[in-house]
């Protein structure tokens, strides 16, 4: 965007440069209403959850290193798969992108803060309570739920009190997401600087605007599903029990009506980050801006009518299978548009390959592979063979890890200099990328083979023919974990003693935060909105 800025009123910002609302120490963070502080809190929270969920993944992979039960019993194994999924989705990926939204949206649209600053504080501070409830469920009689993150009825009825902890945690997480989304929608619709029309916004803001609508639409549906589970468990209702006129499959319909849009809640902000990073390192504007916006909206709308493709094996009528299959394959069209646009952005640019760009290209390559396996899985007959196998596990990790997580790393390396004024160590960043890339594929590429050969997911033990791929996958998992320690080391040394970042470390970056705000950004920005002509 080549917006022309009226810079009057800039010197003003120095006057109350760095005051933190009158509190210091821990109270600063508890009481803060500053979007940058809250963004930071979200990101630290996501980081902690990422490592907690990662530890659980290591328990899973260690048990699956060889046939037989060695380390954990099947009950605890199921608890691990459940909590790994819940924590990674609700604790790590979603908060990470809300963190980016908090930091970046106000700066990108020329707003002084989020629309509802106190609500913003509350949205974040709900999360630690939810996470604590989730973790506490391990220490209840019977432990955490062993149902998988999808919490399917009627297995949920057999669980201990840990299930109730999880249900309330999901309620709180949902509340946090809804409040955060209302804030993002209001901020984007009402607080753009004069001249910042919707179609001039950086793509990251667009993807978040659409994501926020998705969240407001589907989180209450999830809350409904888990509340019905709660009343089935304790108050004698039979929503999901055929003996009382209910239907276990009803749960799946409600859950996936939330669950499929949730996939895009995670993917769309990731698309947004990638749409900032690729143009910056191609030194070329994003190709097909308008079609990118339409494609994002199309994906979001389609995501509401494809949910039952997660349920092809429940035995729905043939017309139902065909409808959901056709609708699902349609998603390939707008997703294809986005991939083609990113590649065209790179085409005839002037490319350089710093860490954020490496993660973005890694995203583009591996996420597209996840898209291909998504196309394979969208087709009913093939899906019936692959449903609930490791092929599905491989598919959604290509979307969630190589998609969302790679994009989150791209965002962190991209924006860290702007936020902190410190430059990360490029060599370590590149090591982090390459090792993550290699070990990611070592873990998950072979899982396609396992699924095709017939290994079901969510099993603590397996027949002998699956041994070799499982060993490779498990070794990859530990390599992956070690690679993330490089990131931690790089992050901490950067924060503590990183080199001073140049004013504009990425010459191709063109959003307002890069072009018109100093590095590091002051505590308060855009007290006087910029005017775009």
């Amino acid at each position: 965007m080549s917006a022309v800025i009226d810079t009057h009123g800039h010197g003003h910002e120095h006057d109350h440069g760095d005051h933190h609302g009158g509190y210091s120490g821990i109270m600063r963070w508890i009481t803060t209403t500053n979007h940058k502080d809250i963004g930071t809190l979200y990101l630290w929270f996501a980081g902690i959850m990422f490592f907690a969920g990662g530890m659980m993944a290591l328990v899973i992979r260690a048990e699956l290193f060889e046939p037989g039960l060695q380390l954990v019993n099947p009950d605890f194994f199921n608890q691990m798969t459940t909590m790994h999924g819940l924590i990674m989705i609700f604790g790590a990926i979603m908060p990470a992108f809300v963190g980016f939204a908090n930091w970046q949206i106000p700066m990108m649209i020329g707003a002084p803060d989020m629309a509802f600053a106190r609500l913003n504080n509350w949205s974040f501070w709900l999360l630690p309570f939810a996470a604590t409830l989730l973790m506490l469920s391990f220490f209840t009689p019977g432990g955490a739920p062993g149902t998988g993150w999808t919490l399917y009825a009627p297995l949920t009825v057999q669980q201990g009190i840990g299930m109730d902890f999880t249900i309330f945690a999901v309620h709180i997480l949902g509340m946090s997401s809804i409040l955060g989304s209302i804030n993002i929608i209001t901020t984007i619709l009402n607080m753009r600087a004069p001249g910042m029309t919707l179609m001039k916004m950086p793509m990251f803001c667009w993807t978040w605007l659409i994501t926020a609508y998705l969240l407001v639409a589907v989180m209450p549906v999830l809350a409904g599903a888990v509340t019905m589970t709660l009343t089935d468990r304790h108050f004698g209702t039979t929503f999901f029990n055929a003996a009382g006129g209910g239907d276990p499959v009803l749960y799946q319909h409600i859950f996936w009506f939330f669950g499929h849009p949730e996939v895009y809640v995670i993917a769309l902000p990731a698309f947004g980050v990638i749409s900032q990073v690729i143009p910056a390192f191609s030194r070329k504007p994003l190709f097909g801006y308008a079609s990118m916006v339409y494609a994002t909206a199309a994906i979001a709308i389609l995501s509401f009518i494809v949910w039952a493709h997660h349920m092809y094996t429940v035995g729905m009528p043939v017309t139902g299978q065909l409808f959901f299959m056709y609708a699902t394959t349609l998603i390939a069209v707008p997703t294809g548009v986005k991939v083609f646009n990113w590649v065209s952005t790179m085409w005839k640019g002037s490319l350089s390959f710093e860490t954020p760009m490496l993660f973005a290209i890694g995203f583009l390559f591996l996420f597209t592979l996840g898209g291909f396996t998504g196309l394979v899985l969208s087709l009913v007959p093939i899906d019936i063979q692959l449903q609930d196998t490791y092929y599905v596990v491989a598919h959604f990790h290509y979307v969630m890890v190589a998609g969302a997580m790679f994009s989150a790393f791209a965002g962190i390396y991209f924006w860290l200099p702007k936020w902190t004024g410190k430059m990360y160590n490029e060599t370590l960043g590149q090591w982090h990328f390459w090792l993550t890339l290699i070990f990611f594929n070592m873990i998950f590429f072979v899982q396609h083979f396992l699924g095709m050969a017939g290994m079901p997911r969510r099993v603590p033990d397996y027949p002998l023919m699956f041994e070799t791929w499982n060993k490779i996958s498990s070794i990859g998992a530990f390599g992956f974990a070690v690679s993330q320690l490089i990131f931690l080391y790089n992050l901490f040394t950067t924060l503590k003693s990183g080199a001073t970042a140049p004013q504009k470390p990425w010459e191709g970056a063109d959003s307002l935060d890069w072009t018109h705000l100093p590095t590091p950004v002051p505590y308060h920005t855009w007290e006087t909105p910029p005017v775009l002509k």
Partner: protein
Amino acid sequence: MFISALAGAAALAASGAAAALEWNFPPANSPIADDIHWLHQFIMLAVVLPIFILVFGFMFYACYRHRKSKGHPAEQFHENTTVEILWTIIPAVILVVIAWPVTKVVIAQKDTSSPDLTIKATGYQWKWGYDYLKGEGEGVSFVSMLATPREQIDAGAPKDEHYLLEVDRELVVPVGKKIRVLTTAADVIHAWWVPAFGAKQDAIPGFIRDTWFRAEKSGIFRGQCAELCGKEHGFMPIVVRVVSQDDYTQWVAQQKQAAAARAEDINKKWEPKELVAQGEKVYAANCVACHQANGRGTPPAFPPLAGSKVVNGPKEGHIDIVLNGKAGTAMQPFGKQLSDTDIAAVIGYERSSWGNKAGIVQPAEVRARHK
């Protein structure tokens, strides 16, 4: 780190040489499985591969040629309506083209009409019950559960070739006949799946669903439960033995004879020793996964039987809970799966093991409470 990973990979290659690396679908043994394999190959080779080469050809070419370090100047174009319309319409057309063959398979896969044989598969935590409902063999009924010994699973004993894929009683079907499988479940959702047949169908408590297969070749075909159903989800395989029509007829005759021979004399008075010995076998097959060999269970989900109030209390309470199960827990109604004699035996075993001294019950006492 690299070196250790490489060393690990090399060690694997050496150790894995014995076991073949499975990386594709198992060989198909039904028309639907043939169709699935064909569709998968078609999608991968005709759709995915060309798009992959095209997209990443452009991407990696740009990464190689259009670099700043090579002095490539950045052009500033950022839209091209023709190209954008084309790459929206062409993928849509491709989707319409692939929809045609896929739709035909979906319809064929759903067509469970006019079967030669109808079998009901009931998922239990954690075994499969089979009832031959219609066709040759009507009336045959049995429960099929994992035959792999616990020592191989828990204690690292050497594992058989078909570790976790072997059962005590296989499902037997005739070759070349259309078999319709009705699925349902007694407790939570399970899924009946045999990869070689391309047949997978969720088994949903309280509902009947169906799928079908027609085995083209004789042999033994193995699968596993495909829907997380609790603790022992990984330990409830499905094994189907496909036999010739003659062998099948013979097998059915054997089953009928055996059933007649088993017809129990419900009023027989058993000696405690004899009953408890029989009960130990029933316990090892049905109860040990949860309540454990030492009777201590894994509380709180799976309560101990040693010293239990129910086990040491009145006979009636003990009989009722085994017959009817306990709602909302994994304790299932065994009255639907086991004979009254076996139930009496296992109750007798529980009441006189692990320090319990509550005395045995006779099959007639179980029958009296079996509604």
